[in-house]
């Protein structure tokens, strides 16, 4: 198959993309060679919670993120999809400076949370992370009791004045995470004794206990069974009433179910971002179309 590469250069005003793709599923190698060009769709928003402009991230000499600009709106659920190694987790980890813990990682560009520069020298990453919480791929409850897991951040940041208040926050967070009824008699048993899905909901409860503004989720259900996954997805939808949520997922169905907007990443670039419905029904970029139709990735 021969590809007219010029046809793939896409302008940012979208909907003028005309690409003739006559290739079959076996032509993935050619797909990866395609010029990605500018992001298509609706990357920028008005009155957004997070504004990212021209983000570049390097691991040593290797560039993992190439010039990504993206906004995340208030109380929005943004899903990030894309093949493995496309940089979506790296991008997510930039938003609460988790990449600071990796010595060889270098972040460039501007990241604003409510107009405040996340990477400003005066910005304390510790305080930032209490505003931008994170839930990880593998449930990681601390080696403590269920109660202490949820109380961990509350105690760190001194959010409860006394024991009664702490009890109240713990119970409220567990209820919001839909876990309270299952564990209310075992609050002082180790959190590591719960099932995988319960552990993940415990981690969510732990995150919302300190009342962050944004919650980042890095493939939160990839280690869980379908029932636990359904519970978490339901929870995400509920939480979006109060929080801004950015979720990385490998499951396109999940992205379609829980998110308002979907961003498709490819080889460290943001290919397309748009309302979830239009990404899945009328993708504008051929790479996005190939990915969501399962032709590669």
């Amino acid at each position: 198959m021969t590809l007219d590469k010029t046809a793939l250069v896409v302008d940012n005003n979208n909907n003028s993309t005309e690409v003739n793709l006559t290739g079959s599923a076996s032509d993935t190698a050619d797909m990866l060679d395609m010029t990605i060009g500018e992001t298509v769709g609706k990357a920028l928003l008005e009155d957004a919670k997070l504004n990212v402009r021209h983000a570049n991230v390097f691991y040593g000499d290797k560039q993992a993120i190439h010039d990504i600009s993206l906004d995340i709106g208030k109380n929005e659920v943004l899903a990030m999809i894309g093949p493995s190694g496309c940089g979506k987790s790296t991008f997510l980890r930039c938003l609460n400076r988790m990449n600071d813990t990796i010595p060889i990682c270098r972040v460039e560009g501007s990241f604003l949370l409510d107009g405040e520069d996340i990477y400003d020298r005066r910005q304390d990453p510790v305080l930032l992370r209490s505003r931008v919480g994170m839930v990880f791929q593998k449930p990681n409850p601390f080696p403590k009791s269920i109660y202490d897991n949820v109380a961990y951040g509350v105690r760190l940041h001194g959010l409860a004045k006394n024991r009664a208040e702490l009890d109240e926050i713990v119970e409220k967070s567990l209820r919001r995470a839909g876990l309270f009824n299952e564990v209310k008699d075992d609050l002082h048993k180790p959190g590591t004794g719960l099932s995988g899905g319960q552990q993940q909901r415990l981690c969510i409860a732990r995150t919302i206990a300190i009342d962050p503004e944004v919650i980042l989720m890095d493939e939160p259900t990839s280690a869980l069974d379908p029932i636990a996954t359904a519970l978490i997805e339901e929870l995400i939808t509920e939480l979006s009433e109060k929080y801004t949520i950015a979720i990385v997922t490998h499951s396109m169905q999940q992205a379609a179910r829980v998110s308002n907007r979907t961003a498709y990443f490819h080889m460290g670039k943001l290919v397309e971002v748009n309302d979830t419905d239009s990404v899945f029904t009328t993708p504008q970029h051929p790479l996005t179309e190939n990915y969501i139709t399962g032709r590669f990735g």
Partner: protein
Amino acid sequence: MNVTSLLLVLVSIALLGYFGGYRKARALSSSAKTHSRPQYHGYLVALWALLPALAVLMAWTMSQEAIITRLVMSELPATAQHQSAAERSLFINQFKNLAQAKKSAVDESGVSLPNEEDDPLTNQAANRYLHWQERSQVARTLAVITLAALAIWLTLRRLRASFQARNRVEKIIQFIMMLSASIAILTTVGIVFSVLFEALQFFRHVPITEFLFGTHWNPQTAIRADQVGGSGSFGAIPLFTGTLLISLIALSVAVPLGLFSAIYLAEYASPRVRAIAKPVMEMLAGIPTVVYGFFAALTVAPLIRQTAESLGLSASSESTLAAGLVMGIMIIPFVSSLSDDVISAVPQILRDGSYAMGATKSETIKQVIIPAALPGIVGGVLLAASRAIGETMIVVMAAGLAANLTANPLDSVTTVTTQIVTLLTGDQEFDSPKTLAAFALGLGLFVVTLGLNIISLYVVRKYREQYE
């Protein structure tokens, strides 16, 4: 044939067996698919050739001496039979020595020694001894080689295409592994029992209550009946408290220093610092303890004494504090190295979880990493403790021999291990209470360290349930 050449022969027979099995299996595989690959058939034949023959060789070599001695003794005229046990063993030693001398003389010059000086009975016994020894060697060679050949023949005959050689080889290997494990266990049990029996002998001389609860230790006993000397007192309490005191001082040095350096190395140090500092710290454990002993006795002890005197305190020149401090330095690597390993092994995802909650590095270390690593840290500390309790050389050189019952670290105390060394050096009779006391002390020490190990196992298991 001596054992070494016999072993060589056995190995070559086994090799032949391997090739025999291999070729037969190859031949079989040309007509039908064999269950196992030809190598396994070869291994099986070789193992069967080797193992029974080795077992016989070992059993024969170990028992031949006793059997031959018996044979020689029973052949001697009746006059030689009626001797006391002591005379008998003397006689056996004599003729064995003579036999040895004759043998080496033959080996060197090819002629046998003229032996006019020797008693004819001894001479006769030595000759018989040599005769039987020769016979035994020939018989042993024949038996072993025949056994190996027979085993090869029998195994080769059983080889079929459907023969499950691989499974059998794996069974045999499994058996060998089990045997190795049981040798280690049996040795431990053997040591415990030998110490136990000697200790029981000691308790026949000295009541166990006096040993356990007596507060006075003075093991000097009269060697001969007419000698004037102390009757000896064997109260072990001063020794065990001395050991405890020194170990406590050592641990109070080693645990904080070791733990802090482990946290620094694992969490804060740059990879370059870590790459240099960790091996250097581990070198502390490689310094011979006698060097630490010098250091304690010649540098630290005088320093402590001077400091104490300038503060108006009186310090013994062989102070507990000096020995304990230096021992503490010595056992730092036990704490730091193990703790460093377990801290580094705490999964990154737990750290990330804590950072993502807005915890600082030190909060993460205190609240998440140390609790998660606690079983390993406790294990390291208890290992260091048993090392401190069993340590001998530093305390021999620096802590002194005076069995004081004191809690003052500036006094000199003595430890269990030091006393064992002093009790067993010198030329006492081996069944006097003084020497036997060493075994009782050894048993006490063993019980203490065993107790520590059991506690550490318990702690580790308890926390592991909670934290993994």
